[in-house]
């Protein structure tokens, strides 16, 4: 038996979480370093997995399969395709930066009882989320995926509700109430989605008798499994609803601004850049693969919803007064692009969507973390409280600008490539959708540049005077992310090579071919 690399990649952060949680109350710094070391070790393992992955090889690689709960037809089955391995690597990459950026976020304000250990808990929960997210990208058993999909809500919930942003307006109690509201809203939205998916998961078992993706694909291929059209559509809707809540897609998005606004910036990054990707990933992996006919049936509605997300998210981002909520609405707009790319059912669209997931993760992390540094310094999330920061803290302002430019998909930075691909893919299938989506880019320029202009330029506000520039720890967070954005912007080939074969598989699942250019078709 070969070394279970995928299990190890997921187990390492889980072990790290337990170890971090067990650190005595007084040794806070030890806990932080322990968490960082474990996250870096996970990154190494994910890197090995990425290196061992052969783009032209089997669909699922590095597979593992063990019996688990026979009675439910559940196996512990892991395997990654190009999409899974890319997102797994993204997760492993972002977590060390999240930990580093949140270094002081969970320090106790005053020494309470010796048993209260918020710092240990904070970093342990982050590692726990990492373990579950990585495993969910690897799972090729629907039930295993479902369990992780639900279980990751619990540590996320405690991260949002237990460790709020200290830069709040109003009293402490008010902030605690808002935070708890955001955490409960997050949990209930996602739990309802998850439970509806549970009904569909049970339904799938009744129809197919197994949860294994490969067995279902095989049964479909040899004709022993055929779903009635109505059944397939209901099951599809059950799955899609859960993923659309998680992603989030308009009109199920309203939990995201609350959650991202109230959480600390590193946790906000964890939500939008890591956990939400499970939703869009699952649309590709499960909706399209298990229910190809129903996916095609639902495409028009989903594309409309995605377009609404794009435009509505961007419009609301323009109108925000709170920096973090602005970034949250921008993310909703971007998730609209990802879903548009997936359901355009063209290879450019789906490649673009996958790249978009990775690039959006990196660019949002960069923007949100720098915004977090800024907010910690001033103690306010309101845009109006800032002005002229670039004169006082030029490096901070510069990195903020780069993060913002990446968010608006400036050519030369990574998100441009993916957004371009998504638009090309959407345009070739549904020209009108492509045109409407383009307005999202225009609006993105508006909200990013206006944000920059209001906070960074102009006369230096009195409260901003004397603001310190980025420190070494903060630079260590931001610079690698920016370097990565530049690299993938200029040279996306390594990523596209890994992703493209997986996209071809998905396209053949739904039996879609790319629409040919009309000139050729006329010949």
């Amino acid at each position, binding site marked *: 038996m070969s070394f279970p690399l995928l299990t190890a990649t997921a187990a390492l952060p889980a072990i790290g979480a337990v170890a971090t949680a067990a650190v005595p109350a007084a040794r806070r710094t030890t806990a932080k370093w322990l968490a960082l070391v474990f996250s870096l070790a996970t990154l190494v393992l994910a890197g090995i997995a990425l290196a061992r992955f052969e783009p032209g090889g089997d669909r699922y690689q590095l597979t593992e399969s063990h019996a688990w709960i026979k009675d439910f037809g559940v196996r512990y089955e892991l395997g990654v395709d190009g999409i899974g391995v890319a997102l797994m690597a993204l997760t492993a990459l972002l977590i060390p930066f999240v930990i580093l950026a949140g270094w002081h976020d969970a320090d106790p304000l005053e020494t309470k009882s010796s048993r209260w250990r918020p710092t240990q808990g904070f970093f342990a929960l982050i590692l726990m989320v990492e373990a579950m997210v990585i495993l969910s990208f690897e799972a090729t058993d629907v039930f295993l995926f479902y369990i992780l999909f639900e279980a990751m809500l619990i540590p996320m919930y*405690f991260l949002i509700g*237990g460790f709020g942003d200290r830069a709040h307006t109003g009293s402490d109690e008010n902030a605690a109430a808002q935070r708890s509201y955001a955490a409960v809203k997050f949990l209930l939205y996602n739990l309802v989605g998850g439970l509806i998916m549970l009904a569909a998961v049970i339904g799938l078992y009744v129809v197919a008798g197994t949860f294994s993706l490969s067995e279902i694909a095989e049964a479909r291929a040899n004709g022993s499994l055929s779903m009635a059209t109505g059944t397939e559509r209901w099951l599809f809707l059950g799955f899609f609803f859960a993923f659309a809540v998680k992603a989030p897609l308009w009109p199920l998005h309203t939990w995201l601004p609350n959650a991202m606004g109230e959480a600390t910036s590193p946790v906000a990054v964890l939500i939008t850049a890591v956990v939400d990707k499970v939703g869009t990933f699952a649309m590709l992996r499960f909706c399209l693969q298990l229910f190809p006919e129903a996916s095609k049936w639902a495409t028009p509605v989903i594309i409309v919803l995605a377009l609404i997300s794009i435009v509505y998210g961007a419009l609301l981002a323009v109108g925000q007064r709170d920096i973090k909520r602005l970034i949250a609405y921008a993310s909703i707009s971007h998730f609209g692009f990802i879903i548009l790319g997936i359901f355009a059912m063209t290879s450019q669209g789906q490649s673009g969507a996958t790249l978009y997931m990775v690039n959006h993760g990196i660019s949002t992390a960069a923007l949100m973390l720098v915004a977090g540094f800024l907010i910690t310094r001033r103690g306010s999330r309101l845009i109006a409280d800032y002005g002229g920061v670039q004169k006082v803290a030029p490096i901070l302002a510069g990195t903020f600008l780069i993060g913002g430019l990446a968010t608006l998909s400036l050519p030369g930075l990574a998100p441009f490539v993916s957004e371009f691909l998504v638009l090309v893919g959407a345009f070739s299938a549904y020209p009108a959708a492509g045109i409407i989506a383009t307005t999202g880019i225009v609006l993105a320029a508006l909200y990013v540049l206006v944000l920059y202009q209001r906070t960074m330029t102009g006369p230096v506000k009195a409260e901003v005077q004397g603001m310190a520039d980025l420190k070494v720890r903060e630079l260590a967070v931001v610079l690698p992310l920016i370097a990565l954005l530049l690299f993938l912007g200029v040279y996306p080939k390594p990523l596209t090579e890994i992703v493209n074969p997986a996209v071809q598989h998905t396209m053949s699942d739904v039996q879609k071919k790319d629409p040919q250019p009309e000139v050729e078709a006329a010949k």
Partner: protein
Amino acid sequence: MSATAVHSLWTMAGGVTSAAPVEKFKAPVIEYTQLAPVLIVIGVAVVGVLVEAFVPRRARYYTQVFLTVVALAAAFAAVVGLAAGGYGTTKAHIAAMGAVAIDGPTLFLQGTILLTSLVAVFTFAERRLDPAAHGNHVDSFAAQAASVPGSDSEKAAVKAGFTTTEVFPLVLFSVAGMLVFPAANDLLTLFVALEVFSLPLYLLCAVARRKRLMSQEAAVKYFLLGAFSSAFLLFGIALLYGYAGSVSYAAIADVVDGAVTKIDPALADTMGNDALLLIGGAMILTGLLFKVGAVPFHMWTPDVYQGAPTPVTGFMAAATKVAAFGALLRLLYVVLPGLAWDWRPVMWAVAIVTMLGGAIVAITQTDIKRLLAYSSIAHAGFILAGVIATTPDGISSVLFYLGAYSFVTVGAFAVVTLVRDAGGEATHLSKWAGLGRRSPLVAAVFAVFLLAFAGIPLTSGFSGKFAVFKAAADGGAGGLVVVGVISSAIAAFFYIRVIVLMFFSEPKADGPTVAVPSPLTMTTIAVGVAVTLVLGLAPQYFLDLASQAGVFVR
């Protein structure tokens, strides 16, 4: 009624009398080894009563705890021995002249009842939580149940350091009844077992040390409504006897299936009358649904759960539910499968209102014990969804769910006994605010139980819920699954509200403290957590056990 039929009521043809002389009367065959679990428990219960009479007061507590634990452990060993001997599968048969069925479901449920009772008895024996009164360690039970609350005789009893050690034999009697209840193979045994386990429970509810009036009120409510439901059950039994001419499950089932050959002349008018069957069946079901706490027969649950001493609540909530669902399963699967077309729609409706009713009303609760009571109602609805499946999977999933649920329940109520203020247990939810800050471990353990109740994956609650929903969907009750999922979502809201309260609210200055328990309660809680996680992570072995056990003998 024909003349000969009437005549035969009081006479017999001459030949028959002379052919059966008195000396040929056969002694009933009783398979004592197979009834060993029940006999051990009853025997020790009787010894416990004698202990109360003859052992000096000082030594009673230790004697009773020792005897009870040994009895329950020995009975469990006997169940395991019977199961290992194949009595759950190949050797399953009807014992004790048709009164009791020894088969897979019987042994599985008896094992579950004995284990949960064993764990629950540890919380009965806990004496470190209440502050010592006049230098004596005290448990959760009244110093002297007979003394009027607030009277001088009560004060004298407290001062003298009396304790109600009678609770231990009472628990054993109750357990004995519960062991017979799911095994009962005729309606009279069913009724006797019901009374044997119910009467001690009514008493146990009344003997709380603190809030005695509330406890007595709960007992009276429980007793009155319980007596009412017993009457229903008994009336139903009478009607079914009139319908089938027998109280034996197999005989009734034959008549239901239309396979009856011989009509009892005395019942010539009523036998085979469907009206009797339907009304009688409905009345028996009413009696059983009362015991499981299904809507609309649930009214007693919140008051009794709240008023009873918390260890009793935990025991009652877990073990009664197991026993009652066992009896319900046997009745529906052995006696009335031929009537499935009639009872399924009714049970559908009951399951739906139970799931939704329990979950919705729980939202408004402000007392943790009442909240858990309504949650137990919602869970009864989930289990009913599995019962309705009427497939082998349905039986095994219900068995598994009962095992998983009972340990979570006992554990959760054990945690409730720990959170205290000056007035005893602090059960009002507002007092639980910020518990996670003060006692992270206790709050975390309680959170695990709540997540299991909510059915979050990786806990036993999820495995159980998945098993029953899968069985229900397989059995063609997809609509029930959807309702179940919706009520799970509603239920999740109030479980999570408690977690929010514990972890995200600031602790109150005059909040409760968490008492440090003795190893007894710690064992209870540890077993609860362990079972919750094991059944969540690796349930396969226990699912196998449940599916092997899922065949009724007829």
